[in-house]
């Protein structure tokens, strides 16, 4: 009896020495997830499903024959990240998607309070165990953007060819590259997926600022054919900004 009590006492002492912040943060995470569940069930479940598999009763209609279907939160890949290819997203990435929505596919939930959105983030993460034992590898997207100048756009245009963006997005960047026209592009669920028309900004799912475009280029869109160019840009990251400037120059500015 004495032994077990001593053991318990020591364990508690060790626990508190080891992780003074851990206890409270775990509790608050669980509370967030519980609150998040209530919001999820009202705002998200109809598309993403009760178990987060993206099989809610309304999801199918928007993407019955082609991508993008509602995200399956149980598999662990995400398109919109600021992390390396194959990595889980940061909480901020999930938060951003909830806030902005995805043009055409998911409405903005900016009407939820900041706290509520973080709670939903916590709940969404509970669908996939990897969030507990993997650390997302983020890509630093800081650094000053290259100004939008004619020279930068020109450099971006050269890079567009060099990086072979046209195979999918087309010479005119209308999403009509030869690989796309052949109908060979598929997403992770085997659904046909078309590359974005880079001349029409309204449909860009990952955002429309230069930083958003740079993020897309460097992280890739997991689950789609869009690869990460991170390692190709290593050492000359400013090229991503030139390319972004070129892409932005193709659509008119609101």
């Amino acid at each position, binding site marked *: 009896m004495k032994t077990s009590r001593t053991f318990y006492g020591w364990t508690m002492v060790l626990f508190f*020495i080891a*992780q003074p912040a851990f206890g409270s943060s775990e509790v608050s995470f669980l509370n967030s997830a519980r609150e998040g569940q209530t919001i999820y069930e009202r705002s998200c479940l109809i598309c993403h499903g009760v178990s987060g598999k993206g099989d809610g009763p309304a999801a199918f209609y928007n993407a019955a024959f082609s991508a993008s279907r509602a995200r399956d939160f149980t598999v662990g890949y995400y398109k919109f990240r600021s992390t390396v*290819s194959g990595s889980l997203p940061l909480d901020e990435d999930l938060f951003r998607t909830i806030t902005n929505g995805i043009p055409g596919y998911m409405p903005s939930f900016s009407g939820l309070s900041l706290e509520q959105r973080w709670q939903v983030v916590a709940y969404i993460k509970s669908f996939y165990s990897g969030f507990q034992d993997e650390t997302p590898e983020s890509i630093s997207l800081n650094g000053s953007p290259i100004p939008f100048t004619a020279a930068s756009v020109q450099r971006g245009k050269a890079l567009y060819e060099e*990086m072979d963006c046209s195979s999918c997005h087309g010479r005119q960047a209308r999403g009509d590259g030869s690989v796309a026209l052949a109908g*060979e592009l598929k997403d*992770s669920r085997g659904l046909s997926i078309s590359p974005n028309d880079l001349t029409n900004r309204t449909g860009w799912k990952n955002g429309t600022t230069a930083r958003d475009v740079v993020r897309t280029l460097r992280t*890739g869109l997991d689950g*789609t054919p869009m*690869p990460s160019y991170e*390692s190709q840009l290593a050492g000359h990251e400013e090229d991503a900004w030139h390319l972004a400037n070129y892409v932005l120059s193709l659509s008119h500015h609101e």
Partner: protein
Amino acid sequence: MFSPALYLHRFLLLSTPLVLGVVAVQILGPVEMTYAGTLEGTVHYRGKPPPPKVLQVIKDQDHCGAEVSIQSIQIHDAHGFLSNAVVSVEGVKGSGEEVVEIERPVINTRCAFSPRISMARQGQEIEIRNQDPILHNTHIKYRGRTFLNVAQVPGGNPIVKRLKRSGLHTIWCDKHIFMEGSLLVFSHPYYSMTNQTGMFRIEGIPAGKHPIRVWHETLGILEKVVNVTEKGIIQVKFTYP
């Protein structure tokens, strides 16, 4: 913020003395000997292999050719010895030895992955290279989840990534959908691939009854339970279909 890495780190730091104690007891106490056996065998394919899959190339025909013919069932002589089948011992844990860091390249060359079928130990790294004068994207999927999807321009930087989980990783290139490959990752060292004459050999297997599994990219999986004894060489023969 909840940080599993930090927690783990602190846990390890604090539990080290305890672990050392346990290890000391293990060393000073009686040590059980483990014996190891060797498995040898062949994989066969019965019958005539189907005609190769022929795919039209719609991109980079100058480099990749107008069409690509893929024969995944490679047979040697009349006995039907099948190459590129991966044989592994299931249900055994890896011995405690360190995972050896050896180069595990997946090379994009002549619009194909080389090697097309590869194996690795969990914890090792793979290195992806592009030797073609055109852009490739190497897309690897593991259990429905993107493991990696990276673009490589001609002469682009190689990409290194650690294999954290065991199981089948499928590889393809979205730009050239005829490019396919597979990477099998194991949590133990007891695996081998049949050579051109359909033969394989796995050494150092702990004694006991183990299921032996054969995987082939198009023919699927075969399994047999084999009693591995500490001495001698156990012979097995697998036959598809």
